[in-house]
């Protein structure tokens, strides 16, 4: 359709169109040549520019020497401009000054050309402060012919070479500061990378000291999972095989985050693990651990600990609570109860705290769910917490399977809920399932 108006047009119009086409045909070839010539010129200019930039680099021998020569010549030439004004100079001095002027202008012109070639944008350099000053420094010489002294105004204009001195000093200062800053930045980056590497190792160690598997006991299964927060946290869990055949289960959360919390976690976990075989009742074990922690707590941190001792042959669970979220027992019929027996203060706050012992009887098919507040206080992007209700719903709905399956269900539910919101706290869960002995 596009071609039809041309086909229907008068013959003279068609002839004009042909002529135009022929012309276009010629033009098609011309730009091709021009384009390749332009490309060659551009690449040549790029090479020359790189060479010029290399010559001007102050961190290389030539650049530094050149810079010093220029500085010396500026001072000499300014001094000579002033000297010329002195009346009654001997003829030989005038001649010397004249030669000096030619040398200075030659070197300055060379410098100007070099900078022009080295500039990324020529126009920008010409109109920059330095570009203008450099031009003014040599322009009078060329404007007035070889003998600039003939024109008094132009001669005085040469005094503006003092400005050249300023641009050089300024440039050198800026370059030095930039170099200093770059060096400092590099050092900082290196230090940060090293710190990050060390923190990564610390975090890996922290996770590695947690038990990977539950002690093998007939009819009984346990699983645990910790999803560490972005900052190093202080959650921990533990399974301890006691000398009387029972198993100790620990769920704990150190206040705060970062390296101090991680250290305190390691100390708390070690103390509890060491004391558990000597103090078989959970309350006594927590009281002793608390005493130890209070004696070595310079940062005034504390840790909430739920500690229980489970008899895998009878299903009897003894527990004591040091300020931790009460765990849940999910019965085989799907009902859930919280272990809300009165507890004591979080550990590490003050010595001499009592932790009352409580007993709960597990029946075949029951599950024990221990968690830290990283689960219930996982926030979504709307700033709502995951909350106890959602956790209970998961426990009720999916508690029939194995320990690992339930943990996976809860973790997925929390992750889906939090969505893209950053995880601010460790998320830690332990599930114990008990069948018949």
């Amino acid at each position, binding site marked *: 359709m596009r071609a039809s108006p041309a086909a229907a047009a008068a013959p003279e119009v068609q002839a004009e169109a042909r002529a135009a086409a022929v012309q276009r045909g010629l033009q098609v070839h011309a730009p091709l040549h021009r384009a390749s010539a332009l490309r060659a010129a551009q690449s040549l200019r790029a090479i020359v520019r790189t060479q010029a930039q290399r010559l001007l680099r102050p961190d290389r021998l030539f650049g530094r020497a050149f810079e010093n020569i220029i500085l010396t010549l500026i001072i000499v030439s300014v001094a000579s401009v002033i000297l010329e004004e002195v009346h009654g100079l001997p003829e030989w001095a005038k001649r010397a000054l004249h030669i000096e002027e030619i040398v200075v202008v030659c070197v300055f012109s060379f410098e100007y050309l070099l900078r022009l070639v080295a500039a990324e944008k020529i126009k920008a350099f010409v109109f920059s402060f330095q570009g203008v000053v450099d031009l003014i420094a040599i322009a009078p010489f060329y404007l007035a012919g070889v003998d600039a002294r003939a024109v008094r105004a132009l001669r005085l204009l040469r005094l503006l070479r003092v400005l050249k001195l300023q641009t050089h000093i300024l440039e050198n200062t800026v370059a030095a500061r930039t170099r200093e800053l770059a060096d400092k930045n590099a050092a900082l980056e290196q230090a940060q990378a090293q710190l990050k590497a060390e923190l990564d190792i610390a975090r890996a160690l922290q996770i590695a000291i947690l038990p990977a598997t539950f002690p093998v006991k007939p009819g009984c299964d346990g699983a645990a999972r910790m999803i560490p927060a972005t900052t190093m946290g202080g959650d921990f869990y533990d399974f301890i095989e006691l000398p009387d055949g029972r198993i100790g289960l620990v769920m704990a959360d150190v206040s*705060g985050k970062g390296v101090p919390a991680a250290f305190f976690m390691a100390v708390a976990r070690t103390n509890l693990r060491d004391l558990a075989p000597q103090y078989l009742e959970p309350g006594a074990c927590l009281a002793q651990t608390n005493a130890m922690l209070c004696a070595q707590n310079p940062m005034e941190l*504390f840790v909430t600990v739920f500690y229980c001792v489970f008899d895998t042959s009878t299903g009897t669970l003894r527990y004591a609570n040091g300020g931790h979220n009460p765990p849940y027992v999910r019965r085989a019929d799907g009902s859930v109860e919280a272990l809300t027996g009165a507890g004591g203060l979080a550990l590490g*706050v003050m010595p001499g705290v009592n932790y009352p012992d409580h007993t709960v009887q597990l029946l075949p098919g029951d599950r024990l769910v221990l968690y830290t507040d990283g689960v219930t206080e996982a926030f979504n992007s709307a700033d709502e917490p995951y909350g106890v209700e959602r956790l209970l719903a998961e426990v009720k709905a999916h508690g029939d399977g194995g320990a690992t399956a339930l943990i996976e269900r809860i973790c997925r539910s929390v992750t889906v809920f939090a969505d893209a919101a950053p995880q601010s706290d460790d998320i830690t869960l332990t599930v114990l399932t008990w069948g018949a002995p």
Partner: protein
Amino acid sequence: MKVKFETLDRTTLVVPEGRLDFGAAAEFQKQIERAIAGEGATPAVLIIDCAALDYVSSAGLRVFLLAARAAQRAGIGFALCALQPAVREIFDLSGFSRIMTVHPDRSSALAHTPPGPV
């Protein structure tokens, strides 16, 4: 989190608003330290009014503990008041409500917090 300060006679009221989590804890700790031993006259009583405090993490709890200790060292009367249910639960669970004086509202805190010997 925002923190407001009010002064009534020789009582300093600290009013934190929002969520006191790990990120806010360090700054809140500094503000309380300044309220206890800052440039101004040392108060006789320090009350933290938690009516507008929506959430406290364990790092936040620690700041309350440090504040209570600092007040005790400085001989200043110290109490909390008007805890929201969610915050109250955290204080109860951790056992902190047993080692700190917690009043249901500001007026009872003002009426029943004995000034420390200054």
